[in-house]
């Protein structure tokens, strides 16, 4: 799924990744690491949002990066969002009802996004991620702020879907349930987590 060749990356002169050469063949992987080691940065690099100067990353497919920040759209309702994405091929609108039910968003359809709780806004982000037609998903902290019942459903769904994904999380138990292999960012290297 991913191949790093002499990959290096620095942020504000602080080296986050150093001389990484690694091939990841698993399709469903988890990524852990302490705060600030560069987990989200790595997702952004894979997504293409951050340029790299050193090395090369080979990526098998184009990816969808989960977005949870709807600040600009806070006056929209979830229904408005559904209407918008229904005209786009980047989202599979045939599964809208299924995921609305799965993530228990049905009662909030006409709420303005700014009036939704942090957890429900996150569910909206996960809802859009599941609907993406991209073959690879980059999901940052999907289990944080979400109730346990929905988290179980998300885990089941992640195991079910036929997509590649990289999930960043601090919740190792949940990660183990959804990942073929977990990687860890440690000492500026990407290593397999035991």
């Amino acid at each position, binding site marked *: 799924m991913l191949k790093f060749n002499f990959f290096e990356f620095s942020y504000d002169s602080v080296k986050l990744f150093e001389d990484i050469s690694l091939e990841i063949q698993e399709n469903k992987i988890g990524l852990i690491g302490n705060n600030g080691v560069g987990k989200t940065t790595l997702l952004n*690099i*894979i*997504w*293409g*949002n951050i*340029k*790299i100067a050193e090395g*090369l*990353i*080979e*990526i*098998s*497919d*184009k*990816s*969808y*990066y989960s*977005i949870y920040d*709807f*600040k*600009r*759209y806070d*006056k*929209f309702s979830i229904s*408005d969002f559904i*209407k*918008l994405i229904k*005209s*786009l*091929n*980047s989202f599979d609108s045939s599964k809208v009802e299924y995921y609305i039910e799965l993530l228990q968003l049905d009662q909030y359809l006409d709420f*303005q996004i700014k009036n939704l709780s942090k957890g429900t806004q996150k569910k909206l982000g996960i809802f859009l991620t599941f609907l*993406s*037609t*991209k073959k690879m998903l980059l999901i940052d902290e999907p289990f944080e702020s979400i109730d346990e019942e929905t988290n179980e459903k998300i885990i089941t769904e992640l195991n079910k879907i036929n997509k590649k994904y990289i999930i960043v999380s601090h919740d190792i138990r949940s990660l183990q349930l959804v990942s073929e292999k977990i990687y860890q960012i440690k000492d500026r290297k990407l290593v397999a987590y035991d």
Partner: protein
Amino acid sequence: MIKDFDLIFCKITISRNTVNIKKQLLIGFLVLISLIGLFIYNISYAKVCILIFLVFTSILCLIESEIFLEAKDIKIFDIEIGSIDFFKTYISQKIFRDNYVSNIIIVFGFSIFLGIKDMHSLIWFLCIMLAYLIYMPIKHIIGTDCSNMVIILVIIDMMVIASLILGTVKNFKIMNLILLNNFDIYKIAGFILILTCILKVLFTFTNNKKIILKINKIQGKNYYKLISWMKKIDIYLYKDYLINFQHICINIITILVTFLIMNDLMAFKDIYITIIIFIIPSGIFMTKTKGKYNLINDDEFFNNANISNEDLKYIKMKKLQTVLTEVLIKLTISSIVLVIYNDFSIITIVEILTLVIIISIVNYIIILRNTIVSLCYLSVIKYTVVILAVLRHLLNINFFIYCSYLVIVFILSCILVKSILEEEKTNHEKKKCNIK
């Protein structure tokens, strides 16, 4: 409060505020020279401008911004609101998070000038500056703790501005506010109304600047309903209007204010020329933040690598549709003006419509092709259309040449729009990473 907090706080604020010294020096000296020039030309007029500026900037203390700290931020340091420490902290962050280099040049430079020229005015100026500094935190405290007082506060500010204008009315030449007949009183009322509208827009329709005041938050909740009818026409049009509503309102108000002021100043015999110069080339969706057009940049969910090239083309089409709605807005404004000035005719409206359509398409291209080179040649195209339209009316240039140029610009714009719609997004993934 810890010992030397003020000093440490000021030092950190200064060191964290990235300052473009050259730019600030330039702005500082330009404003200082303008202010001195204005003072030499007319003392009362200069004083009115200073006071209006200070009243307006003090109103900004009621608005939550991304630049300045608020009461809740200062509370983090366990500083009690309303205490002397609060006043000191609030004032110092307001000074040092702002363009303090320019401001220092203006205040000190102008004080030295006044000290040489007119000692009474210097005392007046220093008193006003001191009152302004004390007034800012007071206003912020009222905005934070006594939200029901805010409307009264804004009305008082408006009355101050109105009385300033009326008090120096004989010197206020730009607005031509000489109280000779009833019509001038209407002009003053109109001016105050426009100022109130700008404030209302600032207070109510905000995206990244939120209002601190609860009373305005309640009013602000309902504005999206005003345009909810657009959903039935097109959900993407609704999206663009909702995200950019504040900018659209401010741009329309700016167009109207500029038109009214310039119409007074330039006193063209033909109102149509003023319309061509000040209404037609304006861009209702052309607001920029940090060099990027908000119409595209604020719509971040629908403008990133998550969206396929095919969908991006569709979204660009929808943006074109949104930009073209400014044709309707400008046409309506122009028609109202023409009716008021008794100059309305079908031929004029058809000509305005043609010009506005061409300019709107060019505006759309500028928004999408946001590079300096594109901006230069597109601006040349845009303003040659305007100049030619003005010349046609002033010098009666050949109608065939005029129409031919419009047709050429229209065809060229359509070709550019087509190429923009068909260009694939810069595949940054491909640039930096290999995708098999």
